[in-house]
């Protein structure tokens, strides 16, 4: 119970600070929009249709803007050595992970909320019930991304080049969920039967569960000196 309360306090503190400055969320949202625009204008209209590109673009956008968002997760703990204040408190290290993870998840989903309608607009995605499914997929994907990102963000924050190291460490771990989610999105938008979808959903959910458990277990060792 104490760990849950501490995790909530950490998440609420992060969200309050972000809400107050809005710097990172604006930057990440703008970044997501720019990624979509670059692909729209970089597309060879004669050979590649919007329908073919749309699923991949959505997930590339979410993955890359998550990186921008996750970079700030532990950077704000560097000011005045604030992380030490948490680590010296009578709080389990795992509570720090869960608090940070939840704040990051809300943060990434906020960026997705901005990027999603623009993706529908830019890529002529037909409004259908499948779009609700894609939104659900975005939540499922973000859970895994942020679990991995929270651990790597904590790992790199004490290094001199945290902003450079995080993408290099994180992107390989993003490949499987991006692949699973893009496959599921393609089938959802194509109106394919659910049997074709379940396998990809299970893989995405498995990725989330495995990395949430792994992250919880290894996080204390990551933040301990």
């Amino acid at each position, binding site marked *: 119970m104490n760990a849950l*309360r501490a995790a909530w306090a950490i998440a609420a503190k992060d969200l309050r600070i972000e809400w107050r400055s809005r710097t990172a969320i604006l930057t990440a949202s703008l970044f997501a929009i720019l990624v979509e625009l670059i692909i729209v204008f970089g597309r060879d209209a004669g050979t590649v249709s919007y329908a073919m590109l749309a699923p991949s673009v959505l997930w590339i956008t979410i993955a890359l803007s998550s990186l921008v968002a996750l970079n700030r997760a532990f950077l704000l703990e560097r*000011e*005045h*050595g*604030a992380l030490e*204040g948490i680590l*010296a*408190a*009578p709080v389990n290290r795992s509570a720090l992970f869960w608090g940070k993870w939840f704040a990051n998840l809300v943060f990434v989903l906020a960026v997705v909320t901005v990027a999603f309608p623009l993706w529908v607009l830019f890529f002529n995605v037909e409004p259908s019930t499948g779009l609700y499914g894609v939104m659900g997929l975005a939540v499922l994907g973000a859970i895994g991304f942020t679990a991995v990102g929270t651990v790597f963000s904590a790992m790199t924050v004490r290094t001199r080049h945290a902003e450079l190291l995080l993408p290099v460490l994180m992107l390989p771990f993003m490949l499987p969920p991006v692949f699973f989610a893009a496959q599921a999105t393609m089938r959802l938008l194509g109106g394919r039967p659910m049997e074709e979808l379940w396998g990809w959903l299970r893989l995405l959910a498995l990725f989330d569960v495995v990395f949430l458990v792994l992250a919880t277990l290894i996080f204390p060792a990551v933040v301990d*000196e």
Partner: protein
Amino acid sequence: MPPLLQATSLVRRFGSVTALAGVSLTVDAGEVVLLLGPNGAGKTTLLRCLSGLARPLRGTVQLGGADVHADPSARAGFGFLSHNALVYEDLTPRENLRFAAALQGLHDAEVRISEALERANLTDRADTLVRGFSRGMLQRLALARATLHQPALLLLDEPFTGLDVTAATVLRERLMAEREAGTAIVCVTHDPAELWEAATRVVILVGGRVVGAIPRPAALEGFRDIYAAALAA
């Protein structure tokens, strides 16, 4: 009566460098211990091991009988203050203290926060963002955060660094008040004069080893010769 803090045979290495080579330290309730030594002696490393921030390779740290590394709740027994304020600039002092209270699991947080802000002379700035605070104000807030849960032991890592004379005097007075209230203090410092009057014992570290642990001599001048001899030995 068992000591308040008992660190036993602490060993800590950074690669091939041994920062702590089997350091043991006990602190009784109400004691004020100054940890002195030259740069690289292992003072800060020792304090970080005592606070649970760093895990020793070998050895244990017990506070009130509980291992601070194995049992997170043991860390409720101390407050940690360093030359960093450990606060967030985009929160107000009140919000920073609320966050600290939540981590400590305090139930009567609002009352304690109001009292802490008053003691820190920050009541009139309680609801303005910390961004832009002077170093002295930051350190007063840091001490309010470190003592909010009324710990039995304060661990201080060069808390006077960067403070002007007035701010250092205010901090010293606040620490003396904590001592009067029965709080034990372990203070890492380069300058024993900063907390000399409050100290009950002086521990000298050189090369990751305790080379001297003596009751505080009456006069600081006399101690300087003892200190120089310990460093030379």
